[in-house]
């Protein structure tokens, strides 16, 4: 699981190595690190990291170890990888129902309607979906479109 961590380090030599130790100790694999030493804010240097931890538990232990070392944690949140999907739906349907699919974190980023008054109304949707939920979201959309008697055309 990837996490976005931002730490505030005291602008003194050796602080970065000290802060990285708990991450390694708790099984974190650092994917990227930005150390903005030339931009200290009130004596603190911001360090932004993307770390892959085996579980949320490992992150929690790291955060706790960092705190006990006196390192301030500005941000620690999971990085959600998303996939963009384009879909076309044909048929008159309850768009509200479609939008309220039960899959979490689905964002509609594009929407276009053609022939809205006809029986064969056509909607193009562009969705942003957490990558690991794509199959679930598509299954749900398939189910809704079947119930609404609409044809779902998803991308390959």
């Amino acid at each position, binding site marked *: 699981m990837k996490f976005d961590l931002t730490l505030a380090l005291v602008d003194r030599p050796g602080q970065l190595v000290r802060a990285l130790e708990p991450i390694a100790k708790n099984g974190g694999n650092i994917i990227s690190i930005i150390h903005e030493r030339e931009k200290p804010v009130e004596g603190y240097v911001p360090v932004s990291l993307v770390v892959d931890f085996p579980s949320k538990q490992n992150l929690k232990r790291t955060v706790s170890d960092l705190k006990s070392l006196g390192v301030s944690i500005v941000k620690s949140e999971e990085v959600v990888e998303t996939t963009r999907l*384009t*879909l*076309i739906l*044909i*048929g008159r349907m309850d768009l509200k129902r479609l939008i309220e699919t039960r899959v979490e974190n689905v964002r509609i980023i594009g929407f*276009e309607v*053609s*022939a809205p008054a006809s029986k*064969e109304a*056509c909607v*193009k949707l562009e969705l942003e979906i957490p990558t690991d939920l794509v199959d679930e979201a598509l299954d749900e959309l398939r189910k809704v479109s079947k119930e609404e008697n609409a*044809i779902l*055309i*998803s*991308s*390959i």
Partner: protein
Amino acid sequence: MNVLVAGFGFIGRDLIKTFHSKSTLIKEIDKDFKVIGVSNSRGYLYKREGLNLEKLLSISELSKYPKSYQPRGSTTELIEKSNADLLVEATPTNIKDGEPGLTFMRRALSNGMHVVTPNKGPLVVAFSELETLAKKNDCEFLYEATVAGAVPIFSLVRECLRGDRIQRISGILNGTTNYILSKMYFEETSFELALKEAQERGITERDPSYDVDGIDAACKVTILANAIMKREVKFDDVERVGIRGVTQEAVSLAKKSNYAVKLIGTIDKGFEVAPKLVPVSHPLCVHGTLNAVHLETDLARELTLVGYGAGKETVSAVLNDVLTVLRGRGKDRPSKPTRI
């Protein structure tokens, strides 16, 4: 090698024509190659010294071939009587029960006769039974022309991807629906108009449901799933949506976003035939009556084959299967003695 051809329709005739035009090539592989029997639903021709292919091509009915015709003789009888080495089964496709081709294939394989076929029906109905029967009797059972016509999908996997694990297959497996959707894409015609034109040009049958409702593509998904992915899939296991409901508005909306709507057969965790959005830059995005098959494997990663899926090009796949049998078996297995 002694060969029988069951079915003297479009494909059967075309095959005889090709055997004749490629006779030098065939004789280089097997100097004893002979077509000793040809049958249709009304009777059969049988001549143990080999039929004259030129003469066969000049007649409109099998009964007009001098002397060798057996009226009302059945193909099963011909298989038993001839003791041939290879049956090319090219009778009309029937996906309900696979007949009459299924009976002919069973009989041929049980008699130790290799089988080559462009007939989907028996494979959709009884793929694993036929494969098992072929193995048990040490026979070749080749069916390249059943999926995507001249596109050599099974040969490619068999010969060139021996070590690869095929993870996913997707493709345009029906030329008629591709023709209709291409018309809608390029000429902005309605589905109905594009279908009418396909009918007028003889690309689809008068009853187009076999093509436009995805039945033909679902048959091919069934065969690919069984033959390549080794999954025991029946026709009814394939989720199927055809293209009747695809409107011009939908095709235009897709086009504006650089997609084309194509009827795609997919085999991965599940089995499906449905209209899909294909990015115009994707290798599957081919138009007209073309077919395309996209393979995803663990080693080669992605491969796409494109070609014609129906019509006279199909004979290329049937001939290659026949030559495969001749090459593989002609040398180490002598022709069976012909029964008189």
